């Protein structure tokens, strides 16, 4: 992707604007997290000053603010690349209207899932544990005490700040470069597809690694007892029940059930199965 020399076309959005958006996102993204719209308010709040700058008319601004309050959820420090792209698209839209509101929503919706998967894996499953393990060792092995803890805090905040600043800028550049290609040629489709490959792959791995459920049913007793889990299910497919539970949740989500309801169903199900001594 060739980097266009900036300055050729006058940008309305300045570096500072972007940094301020990053700041608001970095601090407030999950303030109002909820089971209906997740991070949409945090997202809208983060870019509101940019939108206000782009759309002087109250109507346009209101429309833009509304657009970003649709359901949105992603991992905050890598997924922020979406914010950069969105800002670039909004800017283009403000300039010449060549980008539709639907296109912006489509890109956000297309990328948030993959980047959630990728970001959760990279940051939550890999980077945090490493930093934590390191600092735990400083405390427990080396008696560094509070200093070890401070080291962790500094490292993790610095790493995530650097990462997210990088990605919001990267996203903005990508959006500016690609905005014309996005509209024709299907480049964004392909990027979404590629991101989807990785996102899906790691979500599958997450399912097998982080969801846990197994049945305690056995047949017979003593040494010769047959365990449904070890002797049957694991022979067919290890981690089969976590997969099943995840697919059931997915099916419920697709049927339009909200997160609260699904958690309720899961809880009731687990209680029932547990009382029946099945799990």
């Amino acid at each position: 992707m060739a980097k266009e020399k900036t300055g050729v076309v006058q940008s309305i959005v300045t570096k500072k604007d972007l940094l301020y958006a990053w700041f608001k996102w970095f601090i407030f993204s999950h303030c109002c997290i909820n089971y209906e719209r997740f991070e949409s308010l945090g997202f809208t709040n983060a870019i509101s000053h940019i939108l206000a700058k782009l759309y002087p008319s109250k109507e346009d601004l209101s429309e833009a603010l509304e657009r970003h309050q649709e359901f949105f959820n992603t991992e905050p420090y890598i997924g922020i690349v979406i914010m950069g792209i969105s800002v670039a698209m909004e800017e283009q839209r403000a300039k010449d209207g060549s980008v539709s509101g639907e296109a912006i929503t489509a890109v956000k919706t297309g990328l948030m899932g993959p980047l959630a998967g990728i970001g959760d894996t990279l940051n939550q499953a890999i980077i945090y544990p490493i930093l934590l393990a390191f600092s735990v060792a400083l405390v427990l092995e080396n008696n560094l005490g509070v200093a070890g803890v401070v080291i962790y805090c500094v490292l993790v905040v610095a790493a995530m700040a650097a990462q997210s600043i990088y990605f919001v800028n990267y996203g903005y550049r990508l959006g500016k470069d690609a905005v014309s290609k996005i509209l024709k040629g299907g480049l964004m489709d392909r990027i979404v597809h590629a991101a989807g490959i990785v996102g899906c792959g790691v979500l599958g791995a997450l399912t097998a690694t982080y969801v846990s459920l197994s049945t305690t049913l056995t047949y017979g007793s003593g040494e010769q007892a047959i365990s449904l889990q070890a002797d049957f299910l694991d022979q067919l497919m290890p981690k089969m029940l976590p997969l099943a539970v995840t697919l059931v949740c997915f099916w419920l989500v697709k049927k339009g059930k909200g997160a609260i309801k699904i958690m309720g169903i899961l809880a009731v199900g687990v209680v029932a199965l547990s009382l029946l001594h099945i799990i």
Partner: protein
Amino acid sequence: MCRWCQRTRKWKSTKCYRGGRTMTVLQAILIGVVYYLGSAPWAIGYLTVCKPLVAGTLVGCILGAPAEGAIMGATIQLIYLGWMSVGGSQPSDPALAGTLATALAIASHLDTGVALTLSVPLGMLGTFVWVGRNTFNVVISHMADKPTREANTRGIWRVNVLYPQPVLLLMTVLPVALAAYFGPEFVQSALDFLGTRVLGILTLIGGVLPAVGIALNLKVIMKKSVAPYFFMGFFLVSYLGMTMMGVAAFAIAAAALYLFNDMQKAEVA
């Protein structure tokens, strides 16, 4: 002199409250605030105070035994090393586990082992706070509808940042302050009241909760054309025992393969 104090003296611990009230009201409230901060009203809390390592250290500072708190926090942290929150789901609440278990351990001379044992059910219970808050915020978030219509960005800021705080403060500071103040007997009797059965079930529920978050993420990602990769990722772990990092590496290679080859074709076409 109690054995615990002998031990803690090494870390220049405060005086021994053995037998009496274990902390002042202010300390209890501050501990509640630690949990509030750990519950991520701002993202930095999520990165830091939310972790038992940090929460425990802060509690230690409040109780005048910072090193002790760091050690206790680090020990509890080990249980939550691989903890993660996917798609808005949380299998348990490390912040509560870190805050309260450390507070009880330091102020009440609990054995490390006992504190660790307590931290697990506490983490389970904390899920209620997370779920409650995410539910309650549904209502809050709709308060942004009016400023949105009016193109009032300041108003959106207020709804996003300020409005959720009162209820969250209530849900976090109050119970933790009370529990810390009334001490381990109180917590223990609360847990006893629930019984091991209930706590066991909470653990089971914690085990399946990540499925909800994964499903929510899948919803926006699963198209027929990429769905098989979800299963391949799963199979690589389940049948071949690969690590997550390995799956990610292979998935990235597969994506690159698609991207480079398909884009070439597209350019040719």
